[in-house]
């Protein structure tokens, strides 16, 4: 969603919203900033390209099979529409703690053309049994494991959970 003073990037995953301020304001002052999942993003329009600088990210894992980034990660993105159904994001990641040199990567977003498919609410908490392992990787609890959260029991409420009748 684009306005002259702000761009909102609304994500299906976890219903996240990235707010990119394009009204020439600076980043949040250091004594008000703290690491968070979306970071603090400011940007400007270079023709049809949205240029975004992001800092104050909370360290995490990029994605599956990918390493971690630190709280010190900052990014510069150049995002533009490159076709009727595709948006390109060219990203430089700077992370003095987790990277030995800046990481340059191109990411694209493709329009979903499945008929009648809606963007749904999408929360990891619906069914998340992932745990961190001793070696810093991840695995999950399976049905029967201690601590396993049965998504059916959760969605149907305590009355439907075994042993709760």
């Amino acid at each position, binding site marked *: 969603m684009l306005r002259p003073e702000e761009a909102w990037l609304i994500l299906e995953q976890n219903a996240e919203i990235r707010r990119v301020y394009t009204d020439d304001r600076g980043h949040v002052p250091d004594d008000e900033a703290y690491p968070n999942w979306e970071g603090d993003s400011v940007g400007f329009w270079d023709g049809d390209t949205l240029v975004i600088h992001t800092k104050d990210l909370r360290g995490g894992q990029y*994605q599956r*099979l990918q390493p*971690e980034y630190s709280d010190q990660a900052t990014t510069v993105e150049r995002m533009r529409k490159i076709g009727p159904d595709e948006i390109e994001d060219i990203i430089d990641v700077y992370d003095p703690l987790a990277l030995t040199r800046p990481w340059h990567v191109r990411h694209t977003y493709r329009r979903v053309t499945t008929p009648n498919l809606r963007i*749904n609410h*999408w929360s990891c908490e619906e*069914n*998340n*049994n992932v745990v961190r392992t001793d070696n*810093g990787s991840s695995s999950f609890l*399976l049905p029967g494991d201690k601590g396993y959260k049965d998504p059916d029991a959760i969605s149907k409420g305590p009355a439907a959970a075994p042993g709760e009748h």
Partner: protein
Amino acid sequence: MSKAVVRAIAGLAALTLGAAPALAHHSFAMFDRSKEISISGTVKDFQYTNPHSWVIVLVPGADGQAVEWGFESEGPSTLLQNGVKRSSIQAGEKVTARAYPMRDGRPAGSLISITKVDGTVISFRGKGPPPAGLNLPGAN
């Protein structure tokens, strides 16, 4: 992987071991993508959920006790793009699941496809195998 990252990951692991918290993302490292397994049984549940769907299959064990297998797949949005609907798999159906097995030998895997008794094959990898990742050092 830099030593700093090793220290950061090791530190994080040490901090979180006791609590075993839920993570937003998980790696694919627990699955062995060099192997495929084929497991037949009866569907107990199709958990059509985010972040991942699961097909739970009861498999007769050697001692007569059913073993509960879990097969992880993508969330509903991705499944719908591949034509897999909530009704595509029903509890009580006899199926054979193809999957990449767990490295630790537990009864679970990353689902590739389900074959029903009538020969219908439901592909859970409509766009090919899972992404290989970025192949950056330190991928876990």
